[in-house]
């Protein structure tokens, strides 16, 4: 029997045909008269769709008061404080994020320090915010983060190579805009890595301790959509519909993991990001099947269940066999993604050194995601998983 669950997804989600960002004035109208601070990265700020968004903002009566376009791959506390200073100096009273997970999480963190004061490190924790946050409009530009609909932000603290976790219902963005156009210019490598990130969100959300029937629906829909569309999305042409569906799936997976959180795969991926600077999607892709295999000893039924419901496998009489077939199907999908795009299949290929393993294990073991994992892991369990993926 499930002990307790709740479903709460306050973010307004809008999507549609490619080019939606240029026709967004009606959705932006509630923010008329506000001064926007835009957070993005150096590449995205130059894209045509970014200009389209600026046009919509002007049409809606929103002034762009400041733009910060230097958010790195793994944003950290110093970046958050720099953006806060810029936006405060320009009296911004709404925030717009255009980018992947790092950009969106930076915007969420900036929202905290702008409205609550002090330093970001003061706000680590769960549901401790007390003030109303600024309106936050989010345009996800990858097919993996899910952060556009979650109450979570993860920001690196480069001082001690750890990640700060900020969790509060108030962090959920006000509006998420899914314009398929933003995915069309993504390099296939990024599509593959971020789609594997979204698949990890869906699978971990489904098998985690806090899963619920409501979250399950979103996890299944997301996993099914990714399975069905990933290969086509990686083709050199004819990918528009498939990438559009991956974008939806990413947001659906975000809704799923916003409720049941993630697990051991993310614990290891966060460590890989913090210690070895491995991009988050690549890190999840590297560790996904290891995490599923580890958990199959505890929750074979759940792995088998999502495998069948999301179309990875047909149900077999034996639950364990169905779970193993699901893991094999996920591994095959991952292999297709890796081999067609060149994203790493081993930790060594990703640039991890053997001498980094002890710190990787230490960081993974203290990651909050482990709390939601259905099977308790020891340091040695995690070391063995890293070892198996180290060099194939």
């Amino acid at each position, binding site marked *: 029997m499930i*002990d*307790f669950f*709740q479903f709460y997804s306050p973010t307004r989600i809008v999507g549609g045909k490619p080019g939606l960002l240029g026709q967004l004035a009606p959705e932006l109208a509630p923010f008329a008269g506000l001064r926007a601070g835009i957070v993005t990265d150096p590449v995205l700020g130059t894209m045509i769709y970014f200009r389209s968004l600026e046009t919509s903002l002007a049409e809606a009566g929103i002034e762009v008061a400041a733009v910060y376009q230097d958010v790195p791959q793994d944003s950290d506390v110093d970046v958050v404080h720099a953006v806060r200073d810029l936006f405060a100096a320009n009296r911004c009273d709404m925030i717009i994020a255009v980018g992947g997970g790092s950009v969106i999480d930076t915007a969420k963190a900036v929202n905290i320090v702008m409205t609550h004061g002090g330093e970001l490190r003061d*706000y*680590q*924790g*769960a*549901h*401790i915010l007390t003030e109303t946050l600024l309106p936050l409009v989010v345009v996800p530009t990858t097919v993996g983060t899910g952060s556009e609909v979650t109450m979570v932000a993860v920001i690196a603290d480069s001082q001690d190579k*750890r990640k*700060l*976790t900020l969790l509060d219902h108030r962090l959920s963005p006000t509006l998420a805009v899914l314009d398929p156009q933003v995915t069309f210019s993504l390099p296939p490598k990024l599509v593959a890595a971020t789609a594997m990130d979204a698949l990890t969100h869906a699978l971990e959300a489904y098998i985690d*301790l*806090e899963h619920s029937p409501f979250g399950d629906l979103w996890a299944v829909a997301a996993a099914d959509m990714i399975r069905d569309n990933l290969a086509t999305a990686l083709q050199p042409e004819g990918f528009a519909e498939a990438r559009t569906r991956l974008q939806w799936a990413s947001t659906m997976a975000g809704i799923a993991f916003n409720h049941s959180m993630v697990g051991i795969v993310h614990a290891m991926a966060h460590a890989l990001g913090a210690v070895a600077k491995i991009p988050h999607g690549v890190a999840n892709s590297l560790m996904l099947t290891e995490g599923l295999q580890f958990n199959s000893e505890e929750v074979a039924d759940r792995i088998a269940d999502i495998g069948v419901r999301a179309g990875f496998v047909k149900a077999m009489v034996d639950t364990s066999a169905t779970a193993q077939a699901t893991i094999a199907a996920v591994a095959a999908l991952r292999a297709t993604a890796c081999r067609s795009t060149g994203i790493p299949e081993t930790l060594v290929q990703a640039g991890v050194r053997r001498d980094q393993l002890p710190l990787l294990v230490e960081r993974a*073991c*203290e*990651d*909050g995601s*482990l*709390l*939601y994992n259905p099977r*308790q892991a020891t340091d040695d369990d995690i070391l063995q998983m890293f070892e198996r993926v180290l060099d194939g």
Partner: protein
Amino acid sequence: MIFRNSDELYDILGTFFNQLKFDEEMGKQIRNSKIIVQWEYSDPPGIVTIDASGDDPDGGFYQVILGPTDIKPEVYMTMKADIAHEFWLGKVNLLAALSRRQIVAKGPIPKALKLLPAIKPAYSRYAEFLAERGRADPSV
């Protein structure tokens, strides 16, 4: 309320924590974490701090401070005293309690929650402790 007043809260929880700090298994793991955790209770009010960052003057594995202190905790949690009582009986789903704001936690929560497996034996010990003190059912 499980505890009639703050004195009773400190008497029960304080004495219990001060016994636990000599436990070889749990105490060692808590000391190895070097963590400083503070719980602020309401109904009735009370503050309990566990400081595993240094030596305990009593020779335990960590120091227990009852009441306000200048020590700055790494992890700070607030909850009703009844929830704390239920927690030490092993009856609280911590993840759900955090989600429902029955427990509000500030700081690097994972560092504290990592100790959960280590302190599991404390749940039965708390029940035994209450029974020894004639408080098997403190809600009565």
